[in-house]
């Protein structure tokens, strides 16, 4: 034993990585290195489309001899809380009020007084304003298209709450109603024409912009007011690589679990527009350090909304372009009808093209390949799926209610779709790894939840547990003869591993590592899902 202690001591002085450290699992990202120089950047959506469609940016698992497991996670397989993601609903169930409040409920544009228009966009089909409210807070005002009242604004309200409850950083978006009289034109506001030439904006311009957006039955305009994100905007992030001027961004994005898992979230809410251009990096200062916080933006293009019009039925079913499917379509003369083309959509202008019957979470894709989504592995999918499954029917109905659809059928359909799609996600991804989680030691027994059983999909067990001693330095395990079952073995070292298997799923296993404390009870410090 003394040799073992000496070995461990010497090893602890080594800078080499080891399987477990004493501070594992790390819950939060370490205090960020202060960002000194960071450039504001713009990305080209065309370039992003072409590059991701015709090239393979990032380190893709499909090109690797051995898939790269998700990084930026702790030893429990959870992303560390911080600039990208934080634990929310699954980990500590949020109340209905919290879910409905979403990312914020305390800073809507002041309803009293006027809103000063300080910027406007009149190009294209979707006009918008930038306003300062009576409290001098900045908001971006976005509308629905004339032909689809409530579609984009409703989708944004629901999606922003779901994505927030799933742990991602999103802006505070409020559903507002106002009359034209609320708007006051600010000084020296200019408006760009379709060629980008700017000229002073007039009251008539403002009226003409409002002519392009729908009014409700009370003659008022419904819009999303997106509160300016705190900090300095420095442009979007990509779904591959790292930001080269960010000292804290050292894990390639295609390997981040939170971004890989966002594929499943996007499938759930029909966010086919999940691409770099719809993300946002903000340089913020907290606790004396400047760092970059990463946001998901522009969720108005979800639930069958294409923001300006209902989404194409192709949305989520296939990429805009793919060599194989294009060849199939070309040579089959269209007789090979893709599954998504057979979907049927109700005539609900405020929802767009969203359904659940043909939805296949494993086949769902965004508009074009997303390296992080492509890299997802079954444990990434499970990580997201179990969070999605944590939304109950009542909670989904309550969140959908925040969209304030004037047609009750629209709200009912959207809630129904979310519930059915949620269940399809659970069924699909609970099958790919053992669907057990929430491990803890209670009365010297290792206990956990079978999430599949909890969701009424049927238990994946019965489970067998085999105990091993664990060398946290090397990661090697040594079987403890006769140590089986949920009861912790009496004779063991500082670390134990429980290898949990199910006879019905021979290739799947979960290794749960426990650290045995002296004064405290054993702690789960590692979870590794194998398939």
């Amino acid at each position: 034993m003394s040799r073992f202690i000496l070995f461990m001591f010497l090893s602890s002085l080594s800078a080499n990585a080891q399987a477990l450290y004493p501070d594992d699992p790390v819950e939060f990202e370490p205090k960020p290195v202060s960002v000194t120089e960071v450039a504001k950047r713009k990305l080209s959506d065309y370039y992003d489309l072409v590059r991701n469609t015709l090239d393979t940016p990032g380190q893709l698992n499909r090109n690797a001899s051995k898939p790269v497991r998700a990084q930026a996670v702790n030893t429990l397989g959870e992303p560390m809380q911080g600039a990208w993601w934080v634990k929310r609903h699954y980990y500590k169930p949020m109340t209905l009020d919290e879910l409905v409040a979403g990312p914020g409920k305390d800073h809507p544009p002041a309803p009293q007084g006027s809103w000063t228009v300080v910027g406007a966009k009149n190009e294209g089909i979707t006009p918008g304003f930038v306003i300062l409210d009576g409290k001098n807070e900045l908001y971006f005002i976005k509308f629905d298209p004339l032909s689809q009242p409530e579609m984009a604004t409703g989708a944004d309200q629901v999606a922003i709450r779901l994505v927030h409850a799933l742990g991602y950083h999103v802006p505070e978006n409020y559903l507002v109603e106002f009359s034209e009289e609320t708007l006051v034109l600010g000084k020296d506001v200019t408006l760009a024409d379709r060629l980008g030439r700017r000229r002073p904006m007039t009251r008539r311009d403002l009226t003409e912009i409002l002519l392009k957006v729908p009014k409700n039955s009370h003659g008022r305009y419904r819009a999303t007011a997106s509160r300016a994100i705190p900090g300095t905007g420095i442009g979007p992030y990509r779904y591959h690589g790292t930001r080269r001027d960010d000292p804290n961004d050292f894990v390639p994005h295609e390997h981040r679990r939170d971004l890989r898992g966002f594929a499943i979230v996007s499938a759930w809410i029909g966010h086919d527009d999940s691409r770099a251009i719809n993300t946002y990096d903000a340089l913020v200062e907290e606790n004396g350090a400047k760092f970059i916080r990463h946001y998901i933006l522009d969720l108005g293009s979800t639930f069958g909304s294409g923001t300006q019009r209902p989404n194409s039925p192709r949305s989520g079913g296939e990429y805009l372009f793919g060599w194989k499917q294009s060849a199939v379509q070309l040579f089959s003369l269209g007789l090979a009808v893709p599954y998504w083309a057979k979907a049927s959509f109700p005539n609900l202008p405020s929802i767009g093209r969203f359904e659940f019957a043909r939805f296949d979470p494993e086949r769902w894709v965004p508009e074009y390949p997303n390296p992080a989504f492509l890299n997802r592995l079954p444990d990434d999918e499970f990580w997201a799926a179990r969070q999605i499954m944590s939304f109950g029917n009542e909670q989904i109905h309550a969140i959908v209610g925040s969209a304030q659809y004037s047609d009750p059928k629209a709200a009912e359909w959207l809630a129904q779709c979310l519930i059915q799609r949620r269940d399809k996600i659970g069924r699909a991804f609970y099958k790919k790894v053992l669907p057990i989680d929430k491990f803890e030691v209670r009365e010297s027994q290792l206990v956990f939840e079978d999430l599949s059983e909890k969701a009424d999909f049927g238990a994946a067990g019965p489970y067998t547990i085999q105990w091993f001693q664990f060398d946290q330095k090397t990661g090697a395990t040594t079987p403890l003869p006769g140590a089986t079952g949920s009861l912790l073995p009496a004779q063991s070292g500082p670390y134990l591993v429980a290898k949990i298997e199910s006879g019905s799923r021979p290739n799947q296993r979960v290794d749960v590592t426990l650290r045995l404390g002296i004064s405290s009870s054993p702690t789960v410090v590692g979870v590794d899902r194998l398939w």
Partner: protein
Amino acid sequence: MTKQVIILTLNCLLLLSPPGLGQTRIDAIEQQRSEHQKQLAPEKNTSAEAFLLRLKDEKILERISYGYNGLRAKLGGLVTGGGFALGPEYFREDLARGSVLIRTGAQISFKNYQKADAQFTLPKLLGGKMFVDTRASHRNYPGIGYYGPGPDSSKSGRANYRLEDTALDSAVGISPSRFIKFGGAAGFLAVNVGPGTDDRYASAETLYTPTQAPGIDRQTNFFRYGGFGQFDWRDDPFGPKHGGNYLVQYTRFEDRDLRLHDFNLLDIDLRQHIGFFNRTRVITLRAHTQLTDSRGGQSVPFYLQPMLGGSDDLRGFRPFRFSGNNSLVLNAEYRWEIFSGCDGAIFVDGGKVFSRRGELNFRDLEASAGFGLRFNARNRRFIRMDFGFSHEGFQVWFKFNDLFQQRPLGTAGSQPIW
């Protein structure tokens, strides 16, 4: 007890070890960070991305398309077979906040085909319920193909002639709902036809007599007027996938000089788009007939006779392959989505020209069939390629417009050669 001491000792050793040497996870992460910090560099777009960004941000394509204060270069726009054409165009649709459209331009092709035209349109009168559209044009096409009259004309009988005309027309329309338009139009058309300049073929007057090709020997001018009605319930006129467009136009041509060529023209164009599988597949059906009526020894001049053949009707035949007093063409096209931005198409065309309206039936139709590709952006088709086959061989069409492009309402679009 011994076990607990060992664990405690171990943990203490791990925790008390000097920082920065990887004793904790935080240390390990910090180390990764410091490795990353050594490689920090300013964020910079690739030159390709910077170019695309500039293209979009500075609206370079829009500026090229719009030109300088509306003055721009125009490519193409002449009759099929006229060759590559280029010329200046002045186009403004933003005047008076979009309630006035002005366009004027001139093009000349490498085959010396020429066209100058102007358009003045008020599209939003009475809150969009009324429109006025005035057009003027002068065209000089020196080698238009002509194969002789009737359905039995021979492919080897190809000749050519010069078509030179000047037109001024105005249409006034009412649009009581977004589906319906009706109105009236009137205009003047001065025509000069002469020997063709394409020396590969005989000039038309050397092969065809005035009896066969009325008007080939003497020039005249026309006053024309008529009415039109349209019911258009297509889902998207620029890329229809569902709905129909039914158009009826009547035009009276009065020969002002020779008094030999007074006639009536009834043009019925029915199009139906049937989308299925969420409109990822579309069947487009079209029936188009042009019926003329000339009485009292009057005749329809050959250059105003309905014509068939070309990229918009019988796609397996050469342009203007058939001409006669009346025409009927039926098209069926099946389109399917290959990828977003490209549709495949298979089509069948049938049509004929005939001398008596009693022959308006489905017998003795010339047939062609083929396939094609349609490229679109935001559901606006901008390029199509068609390969049409018939018993006279095959034709390849490469066009920068959609199939069955609609001409202007009223008399301005009543000539067969557009």
